[in-house]
């Protein structure tokens, strides 16, 4: 069983603050592993615990994303590689999925299963996983809560639908996109940390994976950002300070009554 886990390093969005000049201040913002991807990693590790598996983590990003890959190796992932090239920078989801697909075809084409996080906490598009599946022309199940079992050439998963859960069988190879869950993601052991420290993480450029860089980056992406702006608020709102809890409670109850009409 060969599993690929896709991992994205994201800024800790809680750390990002607005400056007085209406720009985003990213100074001192820490980079973390996208939360859904930690669950994707945990899911892969549980398959490995249960039936054995070789797990490769793959990430696309700047050189510093290597630290995210070392972290998942410390959790128990076997190998990792980083796709990093200035021609990849500013790729949208479609371009990112093309790069990932090409890298997987060139370097790990013997995989059985690809596990992605359902969405990334920074962009929150939930598009890269599905687009990767389509680039590879294989099965896709999104919104996956958990895996029931893997046997021969198929996987059975539980998928969160709008108001219920469905049990879905997918042909392997497949891409599954995992939601965050209530279960715990394992902490690295000391032995894992040591292994991660020594691990060799190859960095692949567009050339290394025979990728035509014209199809990635800002130029190669079908979408682009025309403008970015601060979300606007309600114009005539008021902010009330210095009330006691009792006063605030009464005010709230009055206003709720008034607004409800």
């Amino acid at each position, binding site marked *: 069983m060969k599993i690929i886990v896709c991992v994205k390093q994201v800024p800790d969005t809680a750390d*990002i603050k*607005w400056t007085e000049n209406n720009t*985003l201040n990213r100074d001192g913002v820490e980079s973390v592993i996208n939360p859904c991807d930690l669950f994707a990693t945990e899911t892969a590790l549980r398959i490995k615990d249960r039936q054995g598996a070789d797990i490769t983590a793959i990430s696309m990003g700047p050189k510093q994303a290597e630290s995210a890959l070392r972290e998942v190796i410390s959790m128990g992932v076997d190998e990792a590689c980083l796709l990093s090239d200035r021609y990849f920078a500013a790729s949208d*989801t*479609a371009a990112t999925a093309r790069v990932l697909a090409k890298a997987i075809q060139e370097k790990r084409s013997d995989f059985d299963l690809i596990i992605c996080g359902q969405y990334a*906490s920074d*962009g*929150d*598009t*939930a*598009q890269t996983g*599905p*687009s990767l*599946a*389509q*680039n590879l022309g294989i*099965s*896709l*199940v*999104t*919104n996956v809560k958990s895996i029931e079992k893997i046997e021969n050439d198929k996987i*059975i998963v539980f998928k969160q*639908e*709008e*108001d*219920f*859960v469905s*049990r*879905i*069988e997918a*042909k392997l190879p*497949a891409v599954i996109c995992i939601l*965050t869950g*209530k279960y715990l993601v394992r902490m690295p052991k000391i032995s894992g940390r040591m292994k991660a420290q020594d691990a060799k993480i190859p960095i692949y450029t567009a050339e290394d994976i025979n990728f035509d860089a014209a199809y990635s980056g800002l130029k190669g992406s*079908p*979408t*682009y*950002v*025309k*403008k*970015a702006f601060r*979300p606007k*608020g*309600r114009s*005539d*709102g008021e*902010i*009330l*300070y*210095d*009330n006691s*809890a009792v006063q605030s*409670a*009464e005010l*709230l*109850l009055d*206003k*709720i009554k008034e*607004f*409800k009409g």
Partner: protein
Amino acid sequence: MDKFKVTVFCETAWDDSVAPVSYELTAKASDLVKNIENSEVQVLIVGKRMNYDDIIESFSNYGADKVIIVNDDIFENYSANLYRKAISEILKKEKPNVVFFGATVKGRELAPLVATTLNTGLTADCTELDIVDGKLEATRPTFGGKLNATILCKTLPQMATVRAGVFRVPENPVKKDTKVNFDWVNVHDEEKFTKILELIPEYADDDNDLSKAEIIYAGGRGMKSKENFNRLFELARLTGGVVGASRGAVDAGFADSSIQIGQTGKTIHAKVYVAFGISGLAQHMAGINSCDKIISVNKDSNAPIMKLSDIGIVGDAEEIIKQMVRSLKNK
């Protein structure tokens, strides 16, 4: 001149009912093209049913010029790759300028598959849409909701997904004379990569239905504990409201994800929305913007939600909730 076409994917639920977001998007599409000469709003339905009359009637009411139906036994049960192929084949033939999907579980799965098949771009979870000189301008919150971005697409069709409830259907829609076109797509059983084995109903709390509630009390990470959070249910019971949660509260384990409000959760339209200990990132605001009145309680007067509310109260959410419950019980 070629027709300017906007195609809306019609999503049907497991009971064969049409997802309201499909009507919302049809009405929105119809509004977007109203000043474009020689335009057409198309609705694409893929499925298997005996009778489409009622659906066609509804889409006519919301401004569809044409309904395209791909009806086949093979589409009776949803399978992503089969639906992807059917939708992509029709779009290749129709060559629309713009395509909309609801940002539902199914829409978020299908839209990127279709966009990749057609080698075009897709913007997820838009909160505003506009068409300027034939270009779709799709605006969405990004960066943990701290920023709104307006995104354009260089290729055709220009695709976007939109959450349910972001746009509302008009109260007095103008009925159109809708053409109906039955079409056919060549798909095979071997292309069925996935199949549904079983549907498992979840416990649904009918007394806490966020979509129909008039008053909603929601708690965030600032509620500090599950115990504090649970007091919201008492407050809701005493005032006839229901309870929601921010992603922060869900991630912290105070509340179940089934009551999550925001971009990655439910979109609501309450008369009064009261937010306790919620900072108000745009991802959250995207889910509550269509509420009539927003009241927020936060100990931090600089929390983004304070400026985005009709009334912002600076104070301790825990204490204020306790006092509200006490006051209501004494009355």
